[in-house]
C-alpha cells in the first residue's frame, strides 16, 4: 500500500522542498543586509520582463536541460554522475574540432554534426568511469569527480599549447567559420512576426534540448532499454535475475548520460561564444544535479527545473550588476535545492507520510 497519493509524491514534496530552500535563501539575503523582496522583484524584472531577459533565461535553461537530463538518466540506473562538468568540457572539444576543421556549407549541417561530435566526446569521457564501475567496482562518483579535474587539466593544456591560434595570447581556439553561426531565437521567431531581442544568446540549441528531453522520455518509459535501465536502478539483483546484463546497462546508461552532458556544448560553444574558451561550462554540469533532483528525474520536471534555474541564473547576474549581492547567491540557492530535494528528502517526506496515513484512518 502506498503511504501517499501519487500527486503528493510528485508535486507536493518538491514544492515544499522548494519553499524551504527559498525561505532559507531569503533569510540569507536578509542576513547580508539586503531586502529579499526587492531582490526577487529585480530578478523577475531582469530575467522575465523583457525578451532580452527571457533570451538569457532560456539560454541558461538550455544548458541545464542537457546536464539535468544527463544526471537524470544516470539516476534511473541508480548511478550518480557527478562528472557532467567534465563531460560537457570535453563535449566542447568535440564541437570545436568538428566546427573548426570541417568546412560546413550551412549551419544546419554544422549543428547536426557538432551535436554528434559533442555527444561522442562527452560519452567517451563517461566511458572509462562507466567501465571501471561496471567491471571493477570503482565507485562512479569518485571516478567522475577525478575525471572532471582531468578534463579541466587536459582542456587547459590543449587550449594553451595546441589549439590556440598563432600569435594569440588568449587561451581559446580560433573563431568558428561564419557558416556555422547558429540562428538565435530572434532569427527563428522573426518569420512568424514575433519580435525577440537580438542581443540575447538563446538559440536553436533550445529546440535540440527539448527534442533531447522528449527522446529521453521515449527512451526511459517507452523502450526495452529504458525498462532495463529502470529495472536495474530499482534492484540490481532482480535485474540480473531477469537476464539483464548489469555491465551493459551501466555502460550504456553512462554513455547516454555523458553524451547528453556533452551536448550542452552546442549551446555555449557553437551557439554563444563561437569558439572554445576556458571554463565554458561555468558549473552548469553541477547545476544539472540540482535540476535532476528537483525534476524528479523526469524529462518534463527537468525542463521546468531548468527554466527555474535559468531564471535564477539570469536574475542572479542582474542582482550582481545592480546590487551588493554577489553572483554566488545562486550557488547558495543551488546548494539549498540540492540539500532539500536530495539529501533531506526524508525530512519532508516522513512527516507528510504520517499525515496522510493519519488522514486516511479518519475517513
Amino acid at each position, binding site marked *: 500500500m502506498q503511504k501517499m497519493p501519487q500527486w503528493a509524491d510528485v508535486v507536493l514534496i518538491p514544492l515544499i522542498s522548494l519553499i524551504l530552500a527559498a525561505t532559507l535563501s531569503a533569510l*540569507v539575503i536578509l*542576513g*547580508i*543586509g539586503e531586502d529579499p523582496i526587492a531582490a526577487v522583484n529585480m530578478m523577475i524584472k531582469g530575467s522575465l520582463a523583457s525578451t532580452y531577459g527571457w533570451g538569457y533565461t532560456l539560454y541558461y535553461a538550455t544548458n541545464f536541460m542537457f546536464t539535468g537530463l544527463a544526471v537524470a538518466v544516470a539516476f534511473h540506473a541508480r548511478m*550518480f554522475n*557527478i562528472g557532467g562538468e567534465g563531460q560537457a568540457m570535453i563535449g566542447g572539444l568535440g564541437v570545436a574540432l568538428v566546427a573548426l576543421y570541417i568546412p560546413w556549407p550551412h549551419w544546419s549541417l554544422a549543428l547536426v554534426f557538432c551535436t554528434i561530435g559533442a555527444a561522442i566526446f562527452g560519452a567517451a569521457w563517461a566511458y*572509462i568511469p562507466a567501465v*571501471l564501475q561496471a567491471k*571493477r*567496482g*570503482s*565507485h562512479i*562518483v*569518485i*571516478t567522475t*569527480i*577525478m*575525471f572532471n*579535474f*582531468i578534463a579541466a*587539466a*587536459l582542456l*587547459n*593544456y590543449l587550449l*594553451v*599549447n595546441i589549439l590556440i591560434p598563432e600569435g594569440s595570447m588568449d587561451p581559446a581556439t580560433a573563431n568558428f567559420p561564419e557558416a556555422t553561426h547558429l540562428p538565435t531565437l530572434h532569427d527563428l521567431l522573426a518569420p512568424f512576426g514575433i519580435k525577440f531581442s537580438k542581443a540575447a544568446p538563446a538559440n536553436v540549441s533550445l529546440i535540440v534540448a527539448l527534442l533531447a528531453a522528449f527522446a529521453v522520455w521515449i527512451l526511459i518509459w517507452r523502450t526495452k532499454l529504458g525498462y532495463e535501465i529502470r529495472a536495474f536502478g530499482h534492484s540490481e539483483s532482480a535485474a540480473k535475475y531477469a537476464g539483464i546484463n548489469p555491465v551493459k546497462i551501466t555502460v550504456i546508461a553512462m554513455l547516454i548520460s555523458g553524451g547528453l552532458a556533452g551536448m550542452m556544448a552546442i549551446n555555449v560553444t557553437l551557439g554563444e561564444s563561437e569558439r572554445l574558451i576556458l571554463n565554458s561550462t561555468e558549473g552548469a554540469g*553541477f547545476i544539472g*544535479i540540482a535540476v535532476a*533532483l528537483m525534476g524528479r528525474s523526469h524529462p518534463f520536471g527537468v525542463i521546468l527545473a531548468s527554466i527555474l534555474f535559468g531564471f535564477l541564473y539570469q536574475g542572479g547576474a542582474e542582482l550582481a550588476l545592480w546590487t*551588493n*549581492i*554577489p553572483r*554566488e*547567491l*545562486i*550557488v*547558495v*540557492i*543551488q*546548494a*539549498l535545492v*540540492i*540539500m532539500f530535494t*536530495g*539529501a*533531506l*528528502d*526524508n*525530512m519532508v517526506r*516522513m512527516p507528510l507520510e504520517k499525515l496522510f496515513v493519519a488522514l486516511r484512518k479518519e475517513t
Partner: protein
Amino acid sequence: MLEFFQDFITVSDSTLRLSTPLLLACLAGLFSERAGIFDIGLEGKMLAAAFFSAAIAAVSGSVWLGLLAGISASLALALLHGVASITFRGNQLISGVAINFLAAGMTVLIAQSWFKQGGRTPSLFAGGRFKEITLPFADTLASVPILGPLYADLISGHSILVYVALATVPLTWWVLYRTRFGLRLRAVGEAPEAVDTAGVSVIGLRYSAVLICGVLCGIAGAYMATGLQAGFVKDMTAGRGYIALAALIFAKWRPWYALSSCLLFGFLQAIALRADLIEKYLGFKVQVHLLDALPYILTVIILAGFVGKAIPPRAGGEPYVKER
C-alpha cells in the same frame, strides 16, 4: 651537489607545507568513511573553515580565536551532513555535494557583506597568522653539514599546525586500532548491524565520527588561510578536499598510508610550482597541466584496481535502518 641539496630542501619544505591541509582533510575523511559515512564535503568544510578563521583572525587579531571559529564553522557543516545522512538517512553523496556548494557560495556572500573586498578577507598580519616555530637548537645546529640544514630548514620552522597534522597520524592510528572507541568505529563502517546487536549506538558512533571529521577539516581550512596563506580568497581550497579524498583512496583508508599518499600529492603540488627543477635535473620538460592532473589520474588507476585493490569500508554510504 650543494645546489641539488638546497633545491631538495626547498622542495621538501614546500611539500611538507602543501601536504599539511591534505593530510588533515584526509584523516578527517578517514574517520568519517571508516564509520560508514561517505564524505565528499571535505572541500566545503575546509573552505568554510578557511573563511571563518581568516575573518575572525582579521577582526580580533588573534589567530587562535580564528582557529576556533574555523573549527566551529566546519563542525556546523559536519553536523548538517550528519543530520542529512544519519538522522534522515539521506544520500550521503548528494549531501556532500550540497555542502560543497553551500560553503562555496556562503563564504563569498558573507565575505562581501562583512569586508566589501570582492569576496576576500583583509590580509592578515603578525597576530592573525600562525608563526613559524623554530625548534630547539635549530640555529646552533644549522652549521652542521647535511643534517644541520635538514633539521633547521626542513624539520624546524613550520607553523604549529604542521606539527599538529603530523602528530594526528599516530594519534589516528592509536585511536582506531588501540582503543575500544576505534574498534567500534571501524565496526560500524563494516557491519553496523553487529554493533547494534552488541547494544552500542550506531547513530552515536557515526555522529562522533562525522564531528571528528569536522574538527580536522576545520584545522585544515584554518591552516590554509592563516598558515599557508595570509587571508581568505574566494575558492581558495581549489579542489584540495577532492585531492584529500583521492589520497584517502590511495591510502586504502589507513592512517600511515594516508601520510605517505598526502606527502606524495603534496610533493606533486610542490613540484608543479617549481617545474623548472624537473628540467634542470632530469633534462626534460613536464607539462604543468600533467602534474596538476597526476593525483587524479593516479587515483583512477588505483581505483581501477591495477595496483593493489582499494576496498572501501563495506557499509560505506548506506544509511543504517534498525531491524524491527
